[in-house]
C-alpha cells in the first residue's frame, strides 16, 4: 500500500496543482511543495520498514490484465528505496529551482513535474515488466511537455528528439519484454510478465543475446551510453532548469536501474558475453564525452556531456558485476544525481539572470556573485572526484571492482578522472575568474544566490559530504540486494556450465 501511496500522492498532487492555478497562479508551486514533502515523509516511513522475505521492504500485487498474466505488481528493496529517496529529494530540489523561474502556466508545469516523478517512482518499483514499461513510457509525455512548453530557443527540436529516441528504443525493449513473456508461456504453459517468474525462464543462447540487446538498447538510450546519447545534450540545454534537474538527476538513473534490475539478472550468460563490449563502450563514453564536453561553449551542453561521461562509470561498474563495482555504480548514481542537478541549477540560475548560456560571453563573475562562485566550485570539485565527496567514493569503487574484471577498460576509464578535472576547472575559470566587463552585463542583473537557493544547495552539499565521508548507510541498504542478485546470477552461470559440462 505504501508504494501505491508513493505514486498516487504525486498523481493526485499534480492534478490538484493544475486545478489550483485557476484560484491563484502562485498556488500550484505551494501544492507541489506540499505533495513532495508528504512524499518525502512517506519515503522516510518506507526506510523504517524492515525488509521482509526476499529483501522486499514493501510490495503490492493485484491482477490487472489476467489474459496476459499481467499484474499490478509493485515492490521495493534496498536498491529501489535508494532510488526513490533520490527521486523524492530531487523532486524537492526541482520544485525549488522552478519556484521563481516558472511564471507562466504554473499549474500545468507542476502537474507535469509531479507526473514525471510519479512515472519515475513507478519505474523504480514495478516488478511486472508490462507495468514497468507502462511507467517507463508514462514518464516521457510530461517530460516532453516540460521541454516543449517551457524550454528555450530550440525547444521543438529538442523535445521531439528526446521523445523519438526514447520511444523507439523503448519499442525494441517492448518486443524483448513480450518475447520473455512468450518464452515463459512456452516453458511453463502460461503467460507471465512477473519479474520473479521470468527469472526462471531459461533461454537458449543466440536468442538470449538478441533479447538482452533489446533491453540494453532501451536502457542505454536512457542512460545514455555513447551511440545512443545524441538526444541528451539537446534535451538538457533546451529544458527549463527544473526539467534538467529531473532529467540528469533521476531520468538517467532509470536506465542504470534497469540494467542492474533486469538486464543482467534475466540474461546472465548473454550479459557475461556482452560485458567486455559494454565495458569498452563505457570507457569510450567516459573519454569521448569528456573530450566533447571540453569543446562546448554552451554551459548546459557542457554539463550534459559530462553527465554522459559520468554515467559511463555506472555502466562500467554494472557490467563488471561484482560487489565493489556495483556498490560503486549505485553510489555514483546517487552522487551524480546530486552534483549534476546542482550544476544544472547553477547553469539555469545563470541563464535566468543574464539570458545566455554562452561561456565565451561570461567571465569574472566571482566579484559580483561570490556565493554562486563558491557553490559552483564545490560542485565542480565534487564532479571531478575529490576525495571526501560522494562522487569519489562511487568512482573509486567502480574502478576498484572493474579492475578485477577488465584491466584495459578500467585503465582507460581512469583517465576520465583527469579529463574531468580539466573540464570542471575550465568552467570555473571561464565563468567566474578572469576580468569582468560591465559592457556585456549590468552588475544589477548578476544577483548572487539568495537564501532560498542557498538552502537547496546546502541540502545537496550535505548529501554529497555525507556520501563522501560516511557512505556506509547507503552501502548497507544496497548490500543485501546486490548479494542476492550476485548469488542468483552466479548460480545461473554455474547451472549453465554444469549443463554444458554434462553435454560434453
Amino acid at each position, binding site marked *: 500500500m505504501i508504494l501505491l501511496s508513493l505514486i498516487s500522492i504525486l498523481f493526485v498532487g499534480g492534478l490538484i496543482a493544475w486545478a489550483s492555478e485557476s484560484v491563484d497562479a502562485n498556488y500550484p508551486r505551494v501544492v507541489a511543495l506540499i505533495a513532495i514533502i508528504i512524499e518525502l515523509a512517506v519515503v522516510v516511513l518506507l526506510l523504517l520498514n524492515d525488509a521482509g522475505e526476499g529483501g522486499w521492504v514493501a510490495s503490492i500485487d493485484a491482477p490487472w490484465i489476467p489474459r496476459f498474466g499481467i499484474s499490478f505488481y509493485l515492490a521495493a528493496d534496498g536498491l529501489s528505496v535508494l532510488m526513490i529517496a533520490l527521486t523524492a529529494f530531487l523532486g524537492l530540489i526541482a520544485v525549488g529551482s522552478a519556484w521563481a523561474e516558472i511564471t507562466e502556466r504554473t499549474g500545468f508545469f507542476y502537474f507535469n513535474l509531479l507526473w514525471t516523478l510519479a512515472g519515475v517512482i513507478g519505474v523504480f518499483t514495478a516488478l511486472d515488466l508490462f507495468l514497468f514499461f507502462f511507467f517507463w513510457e508514462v514518464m516521457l509525455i510530461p517530460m516532453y511537455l516540460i521541454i516543449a512548453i517551457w524550454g528555450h530557443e530550440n525547444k521543438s527540436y529538442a523535445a521531439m528528439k528526446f521523445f523519438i529516441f526514447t520511444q523507439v528504443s523503448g519499442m525494441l525493449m517492448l518486443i524483448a519484454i513480450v518475447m520473455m513473456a*512468450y518464452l515463459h508461456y512456452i516453458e511453463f504453459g502460461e503467460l507471465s510478465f512477473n519479474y520473479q517468474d521470468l527469472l526462471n525462464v531459461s533461454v537458449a543462447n543466440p536468442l538470449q543475446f538478441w533479447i538482452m540487446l533489446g533491453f540494453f538498447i532501451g536502457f542505454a538510450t536512457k542512460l545514455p551510453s555513447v551511440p545512443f546519447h545524441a538526444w541528451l545534450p539537446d534535451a538538457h540545454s533546451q529544458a527549463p532548469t527544473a526539467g534538467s534537474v529531473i532529467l540528469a538527476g533521476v531520468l538517467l538513473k532509470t536506465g542504470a536501474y534497469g540494467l542492474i534490475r533486469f538486464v543482467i539478472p534475466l540474461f546472465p550468460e548473454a550479459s557475461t558475453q556482452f560485458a567486455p563490449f559494454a565495458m569498452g563502450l563505457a570507457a569510450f563514453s567516459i573519454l569521448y564525452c569528456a573530450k566533447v564536453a571540453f569543446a562546448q561553449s554552451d554551459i548546459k551542453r557542457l554539463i550534459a556531456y559530462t553527465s554522459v561521461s559520468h554515467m559511463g562509470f555506472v555502466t562500467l561498474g554494472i557490467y563488471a558485476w561484482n560487489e565493489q563495482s556495483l556498490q560503486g555504480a549505485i553510489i555514483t548514481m546517487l552522487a551524480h544525481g546530486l552534483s549534476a542537478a546542482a550544476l544544472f541549477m547553477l547553469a539555469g540560475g545563470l541563464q535566468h539572470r543574464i539570458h545566455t548560456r554562452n561561456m565565451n560571453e561570461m567571465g569574472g563573475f566571482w566579484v559580483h556573485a561570490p556565493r554562486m562562485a563558491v557553490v559552483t566550485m564545490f560542485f565542480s570539485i565534487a564532479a571531478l572526484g575529490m576525495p571526501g565527496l560522494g562522487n569519489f567514493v562511487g568512482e573509486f569503487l567502480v574502478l576498484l571492482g572493474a579492475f578485477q574484471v577488465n584491466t584495459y577498460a578500467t585503465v582507460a576509464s581512469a583517465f576520465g578522472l583527469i579529463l574531468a578535472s580539466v573540464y570542471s576547472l575550465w568552467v570555473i575559470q571561464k565563468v567566474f575568474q578572469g576580468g569582468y566587463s560591465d559592457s556585456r552585463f549590468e552588475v544589477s542583473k548578476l544577483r548572487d544566490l539568495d537564501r532560498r537557493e542557498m538552502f537547496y544547495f546546502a541540502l545537496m552539499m550535505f548529501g554529497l559530504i555525507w556520501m563522501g565521508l560516511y557512505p556506509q548507510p547507503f552501502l548497507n541498504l544496497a548490500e543485501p540486494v546486490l548479494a542476492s542478485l550476485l548469488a542468483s546470477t552466479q548460480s545461473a552461470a554455474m547451472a549453465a556450465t554444469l549443463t554444458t559440462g554434462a553435454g560434453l
Partner: protein
Amino acid sequence: MISFDDLLPLLPLLIVSLTVVITMIAIGIRRSFILSGTLTILGLLLAAFVAMLMLPWTDQQVTPLLIIDQYSLLFTVISCVASMFIAVFSFPYFCKLDDNKEEFYLLIGLATVGAIVMVSSNHFVSTVLGLETLSMSLYGMIAYPLHSKDTANYPLEASVKYLILSAAASCFILFGMALIYAQTGTLSFTSLAALDPEFGLSEGYTVVALLLVSTGMAFKLSLAPFHLWTPDVYEGSPLPATAYLATVGKMAMAVLLLRFLASTEALSFGAIPIAFSLIAITSIIIGNLLALLQENLKRILAYSSIAHMGYLLIAVVASYVTIGGISVEAISFYLVAYVVMSLGAFSILSVVSSSEHEINQVADYQGLFWRSPWLATMLIAMLLSLAGIPLTVGFIGKFYIFFAGVESSLWVLLAALVIGSGIGLYYYLRIVYIIIQPLRTQDKINFPVAGIESLSSYFVIGLLFFMLILLGVYPSPLVTLIESASSFI
C-alpha cells in the same frame, strides 16, 4: 420458409432498417432536422442495446447468407454505437446548412445496415450486398452538398474518385469470387485448402482469385499500394462522412476480410501471406512517410489510417503462422482501439468545424490548449493514442500487435512496425507541439462559439475520451469479451 425464430437474431439489422424507413417517412411528412436526427440516434442506440443483450447466447446461421455469433454481434454493437456517435456530432456540423440536410441521417442509417451485413457475412452474396449498401450510402455522404468553399473543397471530385475506384475494387472482388465459385461451386465461404484437384481449375487460379479478392478489399481498407484515393477523399468530404468512412467503413471491411481469410484458409497458399506481408510493410512505411509533410489534419489522419491498417495486417499474417494464437484477438482489439481513437479525433475536428467552415489546417490549432484546455487535452490524448503511447487504448492495441508478431516470429514485420511508429511519432507530436504553443495574436482564427446544439457532441467526445483512457488503463473487461468472441472465428 423463414420462421420467426430465424428472424430473431436479425433483430439489430431489422431495427436499423426500420429506423431508416421510419426516418424517411418522417421526412416525407415534415422536414425537421432535429426529428430525423433523434429518430436515427434512438434507432441505432436501440439496435446496439438489443445486439448487446443477444451477445452472450446467440450463435446461429440465419439463412445461408448471414452468421450471427458473438463476433458479428460484438462488431454490430460497435458499428451501431460508432454510427450513433457520428450521427450525434453531425448535428451541430450540419445544423446551419441552408439546404435539405435531413437525408444525411438516412444515409448514415443505410450505411450502418450495410456495415451490419458485412460484419455478419460469411457468404459472397451478403458480402457484395453489404459492401455495396455501405459504399452507395458513402457516395452520397461524401458528395453531400455544402455550398461553402471553406469546407469540403472538392466534394464532387472526392465522390467521383471514390465512386470509380470503389467500383473498380468491387469488380476485382466480384471477379475473384467468380473464380472461386468456379473452383468450389458454392458462394459461401468454404475452405479452399483441401480442394479436390480433379475438379475445377488448377491451384494457380485459386491463388489468382484470392489475390483479386484481397486486392479489392485492400482498396477499401486503403492499404498501400491501393491507397491513392484515401487522402483526396478524406480531404474532400464533409467531416462526418470522412469519419464514417474512416471508422465504421474500414472496421466492417476488416472484419469481413478476417472472416473471409479464416473461412477460406486463404493464407495457407504460400503467395498470399507474402502478398499481405508486402502490403503491410508498404502501407506502414508509405502511410507514415507521406503523413510527415501534410499540413491538413484530415490528410494526416488519412495517411495515418493507411499505416494503422498496415499494423493490423501484421496480426492478419500472424493468424496464419500461429493458428489458435492471439492474432484474432489482436485484430479485434486493434479495430476497437482504432475506432475509438479515430472517431475521437474526428469528433473533435467536427465540433470546432461546421458545414460553413471547416478547421482542418494544423496551424489553425495553434494555442488550442490555452484557448480550451479540455478540448485540447482530449485531442492530444487521441493523437497520443494513435501514436501508441501508454495510458491510452492505442498502446494496448499496439501491444496486442507486438504480441501477435512475436508469437509468430514475424521479425521483418515487427521491424517495420517499430520504424513506422518511430516516424509516426514525429507527425503526431508535431500536432501536439502546435496545440501547446502560445496563441497567435495577429490573425485570429474564428473558432465557432459552441452553442447549445454542440452540447451532445461534447458529451460524445467526453465519452470517447473516457473510453480511450479506461480501456488504456483497465482493458480487462474488453479483453475478456474479445477473447470469448474471437473463438467464433
